[in-house]
C-alpha cells in the first residue's frame, strides 16, 4: 500500500479529520476548501470519472481497483504517481485553476482530465 500526498499546499490537507474540524471553527473559509475531496476510481483500465471538474483546493485521490498496476501521470509532469498496485492510492491537491490531462504511464491508452475552476 502506498499513500502519497503531494501538492503545493499539502500541509493544509494532511490534517486529520479532527484537525479539519478545528480548522472549521478557527478558519471557516480555508476549511471549506480543505474538506473537498474527490475519488477517481481506476477499474477495468479506465479512470472514472475520466473527466472531472473541481474547485481549487480539492484533493483528488486515485484508487486502483484492478488486478494489475497502474500509474497516474500528468502530461506536463505536474504530478506523477509511483506504480499503484491493487488497492493502492495516490492523492494530489489542486491549488491552481487550469486543465490537467493525465494518463497511465503503463497503459497510455488510459487517459483522464481534471478541470480546476473557481
Amino acid at each position: 500500500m502506498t499513500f502519497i500526498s503531494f501538492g503545493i499546499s499539502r500541509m493544509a490537507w494532511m490534517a486529520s479529520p479532527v484537525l479539519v474540524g478545528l480548522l472549521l471553527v478557527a478558519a471557516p473559509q480555508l476549511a471549506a476548501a480543505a474538506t473537498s475531496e474527490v475519488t477517481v476510481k481506476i477499474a477495468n483500465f479506465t479512470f472514472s470519472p475520466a473527466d472531472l471538474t473541481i474547485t481549487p483546493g480539492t484533493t483528488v485521490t486515485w484508487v486502483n481497483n484492478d488486478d494489475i498496476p497502474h500509474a497516474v501521470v500528468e502530461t506536463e509532469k505536474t504530478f506523477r504517481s509511483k506504480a499503484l498496485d491493487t488497492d493502492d492510492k495516490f492523492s494530489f491537491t489542486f491549488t491552481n485553476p487550469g486543465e490537467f490531462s493525465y494518463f497511465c504511464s503503463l497503459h497510455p491508452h488510459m487517459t483522464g482530465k481534471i478541470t480546476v475552476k473557481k
Partner: protein
Amino acid sequence: MDKSDKIRPTKDEDGIDRSGFLECMTWAGTGVLWALAGGLPQAMGLSTALAAETPAAPFTFLQISDSHVGFSKPANPDALATLREAITRIKELPKKPSFMIHTGDISHLSKDIEFDNADQLIKEAGIPVFYVPGEHDLLDDGQGKSYLDRYGKGSKGAGWYSFDQQGVHYIGLVNVVNLKAGGLGNLGADQLQWLQDDVAGLSAETPIVVFAHIPLWTVYPDWGWGTSDGAQALALLKRFGSVTVLNGHIHQVMQKIEGNIAFHTARSTAFPQPEPGKAPSPGPMKVPAGDLRKYLGIATVDFVRGGEPLAIIDKPLAG
C-alpha cells in the same frame, strides 16, 4: 503435438516433410523454441557464404515472456511457480538450445526481490539469456535504472541492441519507454535511427529476428496493443528476405504473415489475458485453477532459412 496450436505458412513450398523435425520440438513447456536449419543459401554473397559454413544441424533458441514474477492475484497466486515449471521444461530438453530470449515483463513491479527471484530461476536453464524490458520492468524510482543495471550491459539508449548468431541477425528493441498519453508502444526517433544504422551493412539475405515487448504490429489499439512507430521500424527491414518479429505483452498467441515478415506473440508464464475486445479490459483473465496451465506456456518455432516454410507451434504448459 495434437493439442498444440500450429501454423505453417507456406512460401515456395519445397515439399520436404519436416513433420519429424517438428515433432521433436513439441516438448517445450513455456517458451518458444526456435530451430534454424542450415539450409542452402539462395545466393552466394559474402554473408551467405559465411552462413553456409555454419553447421547444418538445426540451430535452436527459446523465447519466454511475461513472467511477471511477484504477481500473486487470483488469476495466478504464484507466478514464480509457473515460471519454475517453464524452466524445468527447458532443462529437460533433449538438445540444449543455444540461448533464450525473454521478451519482457520479467518482474511485476520492478522490485529487486522480483528480479532476483526471476534471475535465480532462469539461470538454472544454463543457457545465455537476452532480455528486452516490458513496462513492468521500469517501475523503479529510477524509471528503468534497475533494469539497465541488471540487463542493459552493452546496450544502447533504454536497452536496445543487436547480435549475430550462426548467420542470423537478432535485434532487441525497447518500445515501453516515454509512452505518450493516448498512445501505443513507442520506439522513438533515436532508436529508429540506430536501427537504420544497425542494418545498413547487412545483405538482404541475412535472416532477421526482431524482438520487443509490445507487439510491433497493431493487434488492438483500443487496448494499446501495438507500437505507434512500429511501421517505421518494419519499413527499415522490408528489403530483407526473412524477418521474424517476436513479441509478448498480450499473454496469448497471435500471429500473422505480411510479405516477408512473420509476426508472433508468445504466451505468458504467469497469467492469461483475454482475446481482444472479448472482455471489458485487458486485465488478468481468471480461469478455473485446473485450466490455468492450458493458457500459459509455449510455442515452438521452426524457422528455416531461404524462403522455406516457417512453422510455429504454440504449446501450453498443460492440456
